[in-house]
């Protein structure tokens, strides 16, 4: 027996102990600690989000207003980045080293295990060059996305724009949105977001250590397809819109054109406009700030957000309401001696019109006539003036004035139609009479009406007593669904017979010598219209023109406002007449010079201040005669 025989046990013991240590370690790695399984999945699995294409938006004749264009986001998982040629990388992406450092640091701060966007929206060209050498940059990959593209750069305020979803919206969406998703922020993009956005898909790809895809995890069992967003067919007429935007070049104002028989909006111009393509791509942030700081406020959606005292066009409403109340009839005549006297004051008229009947009062826009009419409706209605005012106000409100029309765009304003209580409070007693707010008779004073509401009033007149909710989206998706609320006829409570003499007066405005807009007569088309001038305490008055055409079986109702351009007949009426002709005839008979004069005219004030609310003190102000 070897003397040191017992030592074999020591050696055996060491061997066994070592094996046990290894097994304990294995037990810890493989069973106790699940960090390693997560890391393994992180190593191998790439969740590739498949972003759905947003719905395309067409015009009423199926011409594209906005479509999608592929772009490529460069993603990075900092943990997997291995040393690489940073300079070559930056050159490929066309970014500076500083930019790269900044973005990379941002990604690291976010999470070293999760993918973050390093550089957004590469063009197809940059992507192609980058993709070829992607294998040299482990930890980086490219994610396909689509962005909006506007082939004609039209209707920016209507279409709105999309942007990355913010934290608040992510929280509110209950997990539908994730960081980096796009969401509609304004315009149709916002109001129809639920339909346009579609549904994200996910691919679980496995990649190797060099980030090369190696197939789908679990044969694609956990993958989902992206579902594209619904397409929308808008009611806009692209050609009409284009012409409208051209004519409004270098001017502040709005055009709204409505098809009276449906409430479909044919043109929706907010001027100054901007190129919607500016709100896409890597320069979006800069462009956005520029637009925001532009003194002419291109981001302001004037057709639904600018509120103006309507001026003379409001006489149409008063004429209709007064007839319905039985206080005047087409042959009611007031004599204009150059103004309407109330107490010891006078609301002046532009001319001494002499005796005027209803149609003439519209034709010549006689202030005196409406002073008397308003006086009858408020003070001589067989009730106290406050009650008379209330009845008048209720009748006017039915025209959609003073409340939202609930157009399918966000951020619509309701305008202003003061209640009787407002005046009672203001004058300290309810003993007030029409003398206290006589300017309402001619559309001045405490009134605020948006261009949309003006156009809608025209649609009501064209329809002789009813309207459909004005809307911009005609049909939704492949099935061409029309929202039910847009098919409901809304009556304004005016007997259709009462429209005759008003329409006659409006026709003469355009078509008969002595009418205020006779220079905007369209050969061969009987357009009925009404000019107006909106007092502007900040500068030149605003020019307004509302119209519909043709007189029989009207196809288009329109409102045009050009700020700071003086009388309605000067700029607004010609613009409206060109659009009406374009829409009805698809061509323009008047000479090109006529059009060029308008589109080339620059009527921008030194610094524009859009009117949002009428000034209260206009009551006390000397009332100028308005046409």
């Amino acid at each position, binding site marked *: 027996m070897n003397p040191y025989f017992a030592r074999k046990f020591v050696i055996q013991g060491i*061997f*066994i102990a070592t094996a046990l240590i*290894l097994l304990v370690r*294995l037990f810890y790695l*493989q069973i106790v600690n699940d960090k*390693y399984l997560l890391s393994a999945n992180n190593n191998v699995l790439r969740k590739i989000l498949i972003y759905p294409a947003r719905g395309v938006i067409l015009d009423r004749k199926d011409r594209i207003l906005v479509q999608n264009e592929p772009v490529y986001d460069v993603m990075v998982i900092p943990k997997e980045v291995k*040393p690489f040629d940073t300079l070559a990388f930056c050159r490929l992406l066309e970014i500076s080293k500083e930019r790269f450092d900044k973005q990379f640091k941002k990604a690291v701060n976010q999470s070293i295990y999760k993918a973050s966007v390093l550089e957004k929206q590469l063009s197809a060209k940059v992507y192609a060059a980058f993709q070829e050498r992607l294998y040299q940059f482990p930890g980086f990959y490219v994610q396909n996305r689509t962005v909006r593209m506007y082939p004609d750069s039209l209707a920016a305020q209507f279409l709105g724009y999309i942007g990355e979803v913010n934290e608040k919206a992510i929280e509110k969406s209950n997990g539908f949105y994730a960081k980096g998703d796009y969401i509609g922020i304004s315009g149709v993009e916002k109001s129809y977001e639920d339909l346009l956005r579609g549904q994200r898909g996910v691919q679980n790809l496995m990649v190797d250590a060099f980030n090369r895809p190696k*197939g789908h995890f679990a044969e694609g069992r956990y993958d989902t397809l992206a579902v594209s967003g619904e397409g929308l067919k808008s009611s806009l007429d692209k050609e009409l819109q284009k012409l409208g935007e051209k004519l409004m070049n270098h001017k502040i104002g709005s055009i709204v054109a409505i098809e009276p028989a449906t409430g479909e909006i044919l043109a929706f111009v907010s001027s100054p406009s901007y190129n919607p393509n500016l709100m896409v791509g890597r320069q979006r942030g800069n462009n956005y700030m520029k637009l925001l700081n532009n003194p002419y406020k291109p981001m302001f959606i004037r057709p639904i957000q600018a509120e103006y005292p309507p001026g003379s066009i409001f006489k149409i409403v008063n004429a209709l309401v007064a007839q319905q109340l039985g206080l005047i009839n087409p042959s009611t005549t007031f004599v204009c001696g150059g103004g309407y006297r109330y107490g010891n004051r006078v609301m002046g008229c532009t001319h001494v019109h002499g005796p005027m009947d209803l149609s003439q009062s519209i034709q010549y826009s006689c202030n005196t006539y409406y002073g008397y009419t308003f006086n009858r409706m408020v003070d001589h209605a067989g009730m106290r003036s406050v009650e008379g005012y209330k009845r008048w106000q209720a009748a006017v409100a039915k025209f959609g004035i003073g409340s939202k029309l609930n157009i399918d765009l966000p951020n619509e304003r309701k305008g202003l139609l003061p209640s009787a209580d407002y005046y009672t409070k203001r004058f300290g007693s309810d003993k007030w009479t029409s003398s206290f707010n006589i300017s309402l008779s001619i559309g001045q004073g405490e009134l605020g009406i948006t261009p949309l509401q003006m156009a809608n009033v025209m649609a009501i007149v064209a329809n002789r007593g009813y309207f459909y909710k004005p809307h911009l989206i005609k049909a939704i998706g492949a099935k061409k669904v029309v929202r039910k609320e847009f098919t409901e006829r809304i009556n304004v409570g005016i007997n259709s017979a009462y429209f005759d003499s008003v329409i006659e007066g409006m026709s003469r405005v355009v078509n008969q010598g002595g009418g205020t807009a006779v220079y905007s007569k369209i050969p061969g088309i009987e357009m009925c219209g009404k000019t107006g001038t909106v007092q502007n305490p900040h500068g030149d008055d605003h020019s307004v023109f509302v119209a519909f055409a043709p007189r029989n079986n009207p196809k288009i109702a329109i409102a045009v406002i050009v700020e700071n351009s003086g009388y309605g007949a000067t700029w607004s009426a010609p613009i409206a007449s060109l659009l009406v002709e374009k829409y009805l005839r698809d061509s323009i008979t008047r000479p090109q010079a006529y059009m060029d004069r308008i589109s080339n005219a620059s009527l921008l004030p030194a610094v524009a201040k859009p009117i949002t609310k009428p000034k209260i003190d206009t009551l006390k102000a000397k009332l100028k005669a308005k046409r």
Partner: protein
Amino acid sequence: MVTKQRTIFFNVDKVTLALFAALCIIGWLNIYAAVFDPEKGNLFNLGTNYGKQFIFLITAGILGILILVMDVKFFSTFSPLFYGVSIFLLLVVLVVGRNVGGNQAWIPLGSFRLQPSEFAKFATCLVLAQFLSTATIKNKAWQTTLQAAAIIGIPVGLILAQPDVGSALTFASLIFVLYREGLSGYFLVFGLLGIVLFILTLLLSKIVLIVGLVVIAGFLLTQIRNKKQWMRPIVLGTIGSILFIFSVDFTYSNILKPHHRNRIDVLLGKVEDLRGEGYNVNQSKIAIGSGRFWGKGFLQGTQTKYDFVPEQSTDFIFCTVGEEWGFVGSLVVVGLYLFLLLRIIFIAERQRSSFSRIYGYGVASILFCHFFLNLGMTMGLVPVIGIPLPFISYGGSSLWGFTILLFILLRLDANRMGII
């Protein structure tokens, strides 16, 4: 002749043979899985690692049979020659060697590369066995120990010159052989203490450590006042330890290469470097850890298949085992090795000749060292040391080296009743 051969094969230890075969097969399957590329399909291809390993396995088998049919005296008689050739090759490799991964450890031979350090292992074991079995240890203990240390030291020095720290380290395991043959147990204890002190020196500040040691020594001295014979060892031990601490510091800062320092720092958690030195170990732990209890299944591993683990068919082959076969598979592999090691000790102890016994312990020590360092490395228990897992890792030199190592023992064992 026929009868003699029959008895040899009859006497060969079947258990060891079975363990050897099992490990080789496990190795080949895992190399196959590590290299497997689902896109290219699984056609058998001699150009791939698993194809080459297949050839290595067959040649290793032939080599094993050749060893078994050789005359048993051949190994003891020619052990100095083997040793001499190994030393020569280790010298040659320093001159003509191919530099792979920072180590000049390979002699190119046609399309293959030979790693002399693998063959130095069995040669050193043989010559050590030869020397110790004839030396008169009891009379001149320290002389013999020094001579034995020199036998081990010469190849270690040459391998360190390559510099292949990992392979050199495996020779340190031969301390078990010396211990079994009478070396003082203090060496094992000192060795262990040395490792502990080494780690503590790197983790703690020197002053804290030295003050701590002095306090402990002082405490011990007050406790053993009436046992004077303990005084000297404690004082000497403390002084030795303090010197050791300074030498560790010196070695660490001046002798170890930066990448060694990094590896040690990563292991000790002093630095976290998941993209540099820490990458291998981290990915290795991820691969093993992601296997969970049952593993992902053969060819289902993603970490190794998709190249996240470096050296996945050689030094880090155990990752594939851990990932695809899980804790169960790892348990089996660890179990097989432990079984093999204990079996080798069992075999060694049943030898009548001390030459065979000492050689057996040499085999066990070297296999143990590889087993522990390789698995410990993949699990993040020891610093990254590039040494293969015997019989499992891809590679001809290592497979042949270990086969020769083991089969010489089997040959000696088959003849255990005879006299060498």
